């Protein structure tokens, strides 16, 4: 058995907080990605990161290992994650079809070129 000189950092189970922090970092990375990328597919990747951050949150709140009290989501957390994964896949497919059409018409994937409807 490996023992640690420092107390308790790796000896205690993690809780919901740590999972939520990971989800928050992924969500923020996705938002910054959506805000700064000019490539339409880069924006799509930001969307995937955002949805995955939310998924980590759902799983954390529904996990029996992280919180065992009455306020836990239980199986609802995992069910909602499944639906988020399925809907994200569907939305990525449609967004890619739109991006492909845009590329075929303008020969550029730069979203700054999509300014024809600009007032």
């Amino acid at each position, binding site marked *: 058995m490996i023992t640690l000189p420092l107390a308790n950092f790796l000896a205690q189970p993690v*809780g919901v907080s740590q999972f*939520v922090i990971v989800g928050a970092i992924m969500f923020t990375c996705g938002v910054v990605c959506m805000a700064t990328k000019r490539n339409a597919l880069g924006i799509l990747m930001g969307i995937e990161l955002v949805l995955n951050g939310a998924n980590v949150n759902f799983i954390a709140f529904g996990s029996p290992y992280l919180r065992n009290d009455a306020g836990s989501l239980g199986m609802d957390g995992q069910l909602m994650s499944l639906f988020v994964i399925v809907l994200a896949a569907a939305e990525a497919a449609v967004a890619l079809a739109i991006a*492909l059409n845009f590329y075929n018409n303008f020969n550029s994937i730069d979203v700054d070129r999509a300014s024809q409807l600009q007032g």
Partner: protein
Amino acid sequence: MDTSIYWPTFLFWFFAAVCCMFAIGVVLATNIVRMAFYLVLSLAASSGLFFLAGAYFVGAMQLMIYVGGTLVLLIFGVMLTSQAKFVSMKTSQFDWTLATLAGFCLLAVLISAALANPEWRGLERAEAEALGIPQTATPLGMGLLGARVDAPKRSGYLLVFEIVSVHLLVVLVGAAYLARAKRKRSAAVG
């Protein structure tokens, strides 16, 4: 007080570090192919996080659907829309500063909310080790069909299941139609 390494915690920090590092890599990379690859690694690591939280079925579905399906689709999209020598599209410095500032504010709010609740700090080690391995696939399947065997007072998910199934069919048809190869019309028509 048991001070030996609790391996699930070690594995959590490992997967969390990989996930966050590659998510930050997606933001900072300029080459679209590298962004796609870092995204694949980030989502695969988050699947590891799902396994650690006891959601085995969702973790497996994440690997199959997200990593093996959606991201492969994204990489095909990258290949189909790549321009000559990866024309670099740089965002202005002003936009970057504004976005990073907003991102840090958002992150600060979220992290302070995450650390605020003392009930979310985690179970005691003895309590966590006493929990067995819960069986989640069968209750998930029954819940999707409307019968909640894990928490009988909660409602089932049959309607959502049907809606999502029809949604997937519609998306399949719609995306195939949107992305079809169009025949070029001849110049002189009637």
